[in-house]
């Protein structure tokens, strides 16, 4: 790991100020993406701005119509929360399937979505549940947040503060995990929400995407059979040592059907 300066501000304002005054700063949340890449010298920031000292970034608030999760809330805080499980079981399930127990004891939702790994799980929840991302500057619709591979709508130095998830009528997340890392080879969130049907796919392409044809089919018949005939084209899907694009395209259909079956109960 290259040397850096370490800062631990106690407010969002101070964090943003340290960030903008530094050469090449990075925020640090759970550190479970940033530190491994710094260990491998794939990243070498001049300054690390640790957000974990900012009390307002942590915590879960469950309301009648939505669940709001602070950016610094760990995956296990979400996965093991009885309140989240009661309000949006699909969200607790998704968080509980990230990496392993020790990863879930450190990694946070803010770090996960800011990083926007194409194989990360949370993007499927942000888009699939129609969430809203709150930052220190504005709110961003979940549908507009992920803009490409490791790319988001965040500006340089902008801090994710929380994500609010509207409560769906029913929803489920299913993933085909990479057997070594547990990242999603393909993961699909299916949700019937107040604003309509949503099917969001992570792991398959450069960034999370919705499948309109499945959403339409499910709107008239919420059953696995309704989407059995919908083929997702392999053209723009990822191919790597873990799975070829046509296999990922196939997995989208399988995971979507499993998610519908689970959500339908």
């Amino acid at each position, binding site marked *: 790991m290259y040397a850096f300066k370490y800062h631990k501000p106690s407010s969002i304002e101070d964090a943003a100020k340290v960030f903008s005054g530094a050469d090449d700063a990075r925020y640090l949340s759970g550190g479970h993406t940033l530190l*491994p890449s710094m260990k*491998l010298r794939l990243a070498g920031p001049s300054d690390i701005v640790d957000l*974990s000292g900012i009390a307002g970034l942590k915590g879960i608030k469950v309301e009648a119509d939505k669940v709001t999760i602070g950016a610094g809330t760990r995956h296990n805080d979400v996965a093991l929360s009885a309140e989240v499980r009661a309000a949006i079981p699909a969200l607790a399930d998704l968080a509980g399937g990230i990496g392993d127990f020790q990863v879930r004891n450190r990694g946070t939702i803010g770090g996960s979505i800011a990083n926007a790994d194409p194989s990360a799980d949370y993007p499927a929840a942000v888009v699939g549940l129609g969430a809203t991302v709150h930052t220190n500057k504005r709110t961003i619709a979940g549908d507009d947040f992920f803009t490409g591979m490791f790319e988001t709508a965040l500006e340089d130095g902008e801090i994710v503060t929380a994500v609010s998830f509207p409560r769906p009528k029913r929803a489920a997340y299913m993933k085909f995990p990479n057997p070594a890392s547990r990242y999603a080879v393909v993961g699909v969130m299916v949700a019937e929400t107040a604003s309509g049907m949503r099917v969001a796919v992570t792991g398959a392409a450069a960034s999370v995407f919705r499948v309109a044809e499945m959403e339409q089919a499910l709107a008239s018949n919420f059953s696995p059979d309704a989407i059995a005939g919908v083929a997702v084209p392999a053209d723009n899907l990822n191919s790597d040592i873990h799975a070829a694009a046509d296999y990922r395209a196939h997995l989208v259909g399988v995971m979507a059907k499993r998610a519908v079956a689970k959500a339908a109960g």
Partner: protein
Amino acid sequence: MPTVSMTVNGRKMSGECEERTLLVSFLRETLGLTGTHVGCDTSQCGACCVHVNGDSVKSCTLLAVQADGAEITTIEGVANGEELHAIQEAFRDNHGLQCGFCTPGMIMSALDLLKHNANPSETEIRHHLEGNLCRCTGYHNIVKSIQAAAVAMGGAS
């Protein structure tokens, strides 16, 4: 260099380290607690598992400065003096280790499982060990050891 202080296995300890020093290096090299191991550089093997403020974490993926002020338990803090902890006895009785490299991490991880779930099923144990790799045992006797530990610790019947 910053000075980092933490309570390790019930004792207040402090030392100087660089900002980039990992918690595992601080424990092993500065404090001399070499029971915590390093088995990979990709945060996947779990050999470095310790408890920070009661939660099992990978000490290779945490800066020592991030753990400033924390309560840490390492494998050295599990036994009661000369007397092994029930889970250590269970690993010995059930042949839960061969080379022993993964064992400190397995035990620290399993203790966190038993804290949340005193009577885990075999499937739950296997899922919980997702982040702990063993090159020797094939896991079977590790799972048996943890089941035996759950009984010895009074959780399972």
